[in-house]
């Protein structure tokens, strides 16, 4: 593997979305790094040209949402080639994707869909992660999904599934704290126990985002819409994660009801203070 993943020096970044690109270029806010969705820049047109100017001043992370590592069918090699071309051009600090699927029967469903956690799924995802890492020559960071259902035939708890994926493929993990919180609330589960079950040394990046609180048939369901400030419960969990994983590079994501750039930067500065405290305290992270 040519490339290492993130380093703690990156600090806190924000997800760069189209409405903020011009302002970021004009004002160069004090942000550690920026993350973009790979699929938005595969056209090599105006958006990529702007991103290349951004890249001159900020470390980048490329976050894929469309590779569908959990599809039972083979990976879409055309898409993988486009991802490879983008990464060759941007040389990002890290590359990440999801533990999910989104393609079946040649249809792309534009959602990070849930997987049954079985030996069959583990073998498929591990094969796809290995292949992707070989093609990209990057160590992938795999993100835990937010879930609204689980399957009756799942036999492996999600954090253990991710740990085994790390062991088999050498990939790292992108620990999305909001997703852990959302999934545990929606499916029953202890988010602290989830964090404790993850292999600490594999965590290369943390995501923080807000969620919506909805009602389905009279039961509260949390929707991972990235459309609100990070909730208090997620900040608390973040503190626990930093104590366990150390000062891992952290990203603030906001994708719907996108606010002013200053609001995102303020969230990032809150996270930055948490990171600094973790750095000063040292940490007793164990794998």
């Amino acid at each position, binding site marked *: 593997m040519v490339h290492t993943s993130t380093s703690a020096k990156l600090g806190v970044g924000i997800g760069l979305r189209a409405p903020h690109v011009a302002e970021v270029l004009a004002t160069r806010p004090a942000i550690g790094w920026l993350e973009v969705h790979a699929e938005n820049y595969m*056209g090599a047109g105006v958006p990529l040209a702007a991103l290349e100017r951004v890249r001159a001043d900020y470390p980048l992370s490329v976050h894929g949402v469309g590779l569908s590592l959990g599809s039972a069918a083979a990976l*879409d090699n055309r898409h993988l080639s486009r991802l490879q071309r983008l990464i060759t051009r941007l040389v990002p600090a890290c590359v990440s994707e999801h533990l999910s699927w989104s393609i079946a029967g040649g249809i*792309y469903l*534009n*959602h990070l869909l849930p997987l049954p956690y079985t030996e069959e799924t583990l073998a498929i995802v591990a094969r796809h992660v290995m292949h992707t890492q070989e093609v990209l020559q990057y160590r992938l960071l795999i993100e835990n999904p937010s879930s609204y259902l689980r399957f009756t035939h799942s036999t492996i708890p999600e954090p253990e599934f991710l740990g085994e994926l790390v062991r088999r493929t050498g990939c790292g993990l992108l620990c999305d704290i909001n997703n852990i919180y959302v999934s545990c609330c929606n499916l029953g589960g202890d988010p602290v126990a989830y964090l404790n079950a993850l292999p600490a040394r594999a965590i290369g990046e943390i995501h923080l985002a807000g969620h919506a609180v909805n009602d389905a048939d009279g039961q509260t369901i949390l929707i991972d819409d990235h459309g609100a400030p990070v909730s208090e419960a997620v900040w608390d969990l973040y503190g626990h994660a930093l104590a366990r994983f150390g000062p891992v590079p952290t990203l603030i994501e906001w994708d719907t009801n996108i606010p002013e750039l200053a609001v995102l930067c303020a969230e990032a500065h809150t996270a930055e203070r948490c990171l600094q405290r973790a750095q000063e305290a040292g940490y007793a992270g164990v794998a």
Partner: protein
Amino acid sequence: MPALRDLQAAFLRAMFGPDEPELLETIVGDGLRPAARLQIYRHHVLTSLTDVLQATFPVVCRLVDERFFRYVADAYIRQYPPEAPCLFEYGAHFPAFLAAFPPCRHLAYLEDVARLEWAMNIALHAEVCALLDPAKLSGLAAPDVAQLTLQFDPSVTLLDSPWPIDQIWRVHQVGEEVYTTVDLNAGGVSLEIRRWEDDVGFRRLDPAIYTFRTTLVAGHALARAAAAALEASQEFDCVTALHELLTDGVIIGFTL
């Protein structure tokens, strides 16, 4: 226990169709009906793809009202679900779909406004290419020049319409005076949509210039394009038209 391939095929069917008992049996209720859990995913798939179409066709959305737009988008997504993850490429069939969709067939200009918005989307994402240096053509003999074919920048679309779609587009921009009226009988337009530096835009072309350029875009030689343009207008001046074309920033290559 279903194989992953079968589970995903059933899940895919459920996103665009009714619940299937076999799929529901694989979902843990956890205090909720399995169908309600599946519905959360179905809702997100359809609404997020509708949002993609709305972002690509904002003027169409304003023309028909957002509620109707979401209704027609839902029908479109079911007929033409995306086949790849780059969603800036999603929506190519939407203009033709609008034209054939019975509830909006009376809005005759809607398809062409959608084509304009699609062309702008193409221009935004088309690969940035190096332009042809016009000096490379300076030594060509006249018979060679007549046989030239020119390669256009991939951001360029030439589009004509019997409706003033450029005006319709402009008065439906956010912040524009909403009560500005457009005379639908003002006549048609011949538009060039493309990238200018870091921006995407369009402009009207003179009908003869439009004919000249569309003939070239179709891959025909310069002599044939000039003849077609002359047929459109006796005023057409080939030397000036060629000079403008080569200095306009739209030609990236040539073949002899």
